[in-house]
């Protein structure tokens, strides 16, 4: 079974600065998806970014980018130019491709990000 670990229960950053959230995972599969979800106080789960394991290039979405290290099984999220609206809980998640695991997400425990003005 896959596991996802977020070792930072809480992180903080100053507005306009950069912060990196860590995520490691364990799997024996060679092809899979990785995601970062944001959960603000409203508890809505919002997709931030996704990465397909077979793609070498790191995914980027505006101020959000990932550092995907497949051999190290590491998937960190970098938030540049942090904004007050970035304050939320961030979850890293793993998803197998196909088979009986289709659609099942395995989540990390989450990292609470605080943004200071």
């Amino acid at each position, binding site marked *: 079974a896959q596991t996802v670990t977020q070792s930072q229960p809480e992180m903080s950053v100053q507005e306009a600065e950069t912060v990196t959230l860590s995520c490691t995972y364990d799997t024996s599969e060679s092809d899979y*998806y990785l995601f970062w979800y944001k959960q603000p106080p409203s*508890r809505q*789960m919002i997709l931030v970014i996704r990465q397909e394991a077979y793609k070498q290039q790191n995914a980027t979405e505006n101020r959000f980018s990932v550092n995907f290290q497949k051999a190290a099984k590491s998937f960190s999220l970098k938030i540049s130019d942090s904004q007050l609206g970035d304050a939320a809980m961030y*979850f890293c*998640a793993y998803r197998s491709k196909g088979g009986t695991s289709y*659609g*099942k997400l395995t989540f990390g425990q989450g990292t609470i990000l605080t943004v200071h003005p």
Partner: protein
Amino acid sequence: DAGITQSPRHKVTETGTPVTLRCHQTENHRYMYWYRQDPGHGLRLIHYSYGVKDTDKGEVSDGYSVSRSKTEDFLLTLESATSSQTSVYFCAISEPWSGNTIYFGEGSWLTVV
């Protein structure tokens, strides 16, 4: 917006009573899921469906049942609610054309007293 509506959004119920949560989607998604979120656990899969009347168990399915009699509705039932089932419940959908990304509803807060 993946067109997912959960109801009720908030419910308080007594131990031992049956509870049904409804997930309604408007975009003909084939795959639907129920997750629960508890402190320290992230989200965990309860049950999922890959078509009408096709369902399967997730990692925390004990005490829960599901039904999907039509594409747009996926029901989660707690036959006899317990305090350990106090949680936030999320419905979700996915489709291959969306890059296999899972999109979530807004959540249903359930308190069992």
